[in-house]
């Protein structure tokens, strides 16, 4: 897509893109280049010199059981967050769409957790499930269940998943609702006349027609779970217990800042870079297709 009508001039447009390019170069490309460069070195124990190790950091990482575990953790965590938040959002959107009156009110009531920062969401859920003072923990105790996400790996994972999915529901809800409202009523009415009951209609008509939205949300939610849930993990579990909730992004931070292992952290950054690139390309390929859809 190009504009037919343009203005003359060379220096003016260069001046106009300059701020963006400057910021991009200084804070995006230079650091990314640094990450790639550092990933090829190991600093000596005193931090005085760097030793070139080629792909050594990567080889080490990929054979490191902790890093491989972190990959698996990330996969489990992202899938769960995506599935939970999308399923709940779809359920609510389908219900809200069935209402003629009041769907706007419910929309207002449901959208605002979008404004809650993941880190704040983490604190809220931590409070409910706190091992000492948490209300939910206490009531679970009454039922004879001893909740302790500080020690139990599965419970820790469950908690960060729910807290991450919780804040994401409103976003998914908005897109699902818009997608549902875009399906022509006549199609659904035709199916109803054909004798399809609600669940059949949903399975055979609504859900297939909703698939562009669903696929889009799938990609966007995976990106969210990968990169934007740092705050949740950091506030609730700090990656524990025994690294059970250490997702890749958390590990870059932990190794780079807490552990000061620069070479490894840089190599992890580079691996993440590849992951984001793939996700971005998938997202854009899909958007291109959606334009034709």
């Amino acid at each position, binding site marked *: 897509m190009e504009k037919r009508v343009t203005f003359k001039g060379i220096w003016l447009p260069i001046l106009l*893109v300059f701020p963006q390019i400057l910021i991009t170069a200084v*804070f995006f490309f230079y650091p990314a280049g640094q990450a790639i460069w550092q990933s090829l070195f190991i600093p000596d124990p005193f931090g005085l010199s760097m030793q070139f190790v080629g792909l050594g950091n990567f080889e080490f990482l990929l054979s490191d059981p902790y890093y491989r575990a972190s990959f698996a953790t990330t996969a489990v965590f992202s899938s769960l967050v995506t599935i939970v938040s999308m399923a709940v959002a779809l*359920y609510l959107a389908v219900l809200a769409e069935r*209402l003629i009156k009041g769907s706007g009110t419910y929309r207002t009531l449901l959208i605002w957790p*979008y*404004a809650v920062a993941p*880190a704040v969401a983490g604190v809220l859920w931590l409070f409910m499930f706190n091992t000492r003072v948490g209300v939910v923990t206490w009531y679970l105790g009454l039922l004879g269940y001893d909740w302790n996400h500080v020690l139990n790996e599965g419970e820790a994972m469950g908690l960060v998943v729910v807290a991450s999915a919780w804040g994401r529901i409103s976003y998914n809800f908005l897109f699902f609702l818009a997608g549902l409202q875009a399906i022509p009523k006549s199609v659904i009415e035709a199916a109803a006349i054909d004798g399809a009951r609600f669940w059949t209609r949903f399975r055979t008509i609504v859900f297939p027609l909703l698939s562009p939205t669903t696929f889009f949300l799938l990609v966007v939610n995976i990106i969210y779970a990968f990169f934007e849930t*740092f705050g949740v993990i950091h506030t609730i579990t700090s990656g524990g217990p025994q690294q059970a909730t250490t997702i890749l992004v958390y590990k870059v931070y932990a190794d780079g800042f807490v552990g000061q292992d620069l070479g490894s952290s840089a190599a992890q950054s580079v691996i993440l870079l590849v992951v984001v690139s793939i996700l971005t390309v998938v997202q854009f390929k899909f958007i291109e297709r959606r334009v034709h859809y």
Partner: protein
Amino acid sequence: MAQHNGMVEKRGAGLWLTHLGLIIGVAFIFFPIWLAFVASTVEQQDIVRPPMPLLPGDQFFENYSRALTSGVNAPVARMLVNSGVMALGIALGKIVISLLSAFAIVYFRFPLRKVFFWLIFLTLMLPVEVRIVPTYEVAANFGMLNSYSGLIFPLIASATATFLFRQFFMTVPDELAEAARVDGARPMRFFLDILLPMSRTNIAALFVILFIYGWNQYLWPLLITTDPEMNTIVMGIKQMFPSGDDIADWPVIMATSILAMVPPIIVVIGMQRLFIRGLVESEK
């Protein structure tokens, strides 16, 4: 729209079940926030001896004023100001530099135009999380630690905003630029007099999204603000938890959590229409 097909639209019991389902959903969304609000209005004793009450207590002013004026490490009022400056700086900064570069890319033909376009595009692939250590080093070298410029500048390049404006500019009829040329408007005049006012709604919609993005930043402020006086509220909450086995000051922490949510929630609810538009369009 009032005449709906009865076969499709549920009535009677079905309608009530629909409402019930939605109310359960709303309750699930609401409950954590409600609990936080309750906790911010009671005394510490009410919390540390579970179960805590489920209805608000009478310590609202007490707890909030304690949080705002003294907090734990720094007064929360101070952190709110920091968050405000950061969120506004990021939102406005992103909008300004994106408007300018989108204008250049759409309305001019100049050397390296395509290169610049791709450079901006590639920033999509470089979230802070994948370049934290080196970016931190750059900020440190510039002396940006514990400063507003350090909180703002490394985050204001925006491919999304640039693409959004580019897309909008492409829909502006060519004849408007030609009419402006015939009227004697030079490029910047056209930008300021015609393009900018026409982009108002897009700018406002994007502002909502970007304000929330900026306000909710966590990792970056965590890295570069070591001085509690420069903490933003979203990252400051975690800093309020004691490190050892001490018991956290829950009423103040929960009051702070509520305070951290209020500004972005006001923006979302107050500008709901623009917010939804901005959300849907920025993802196109």
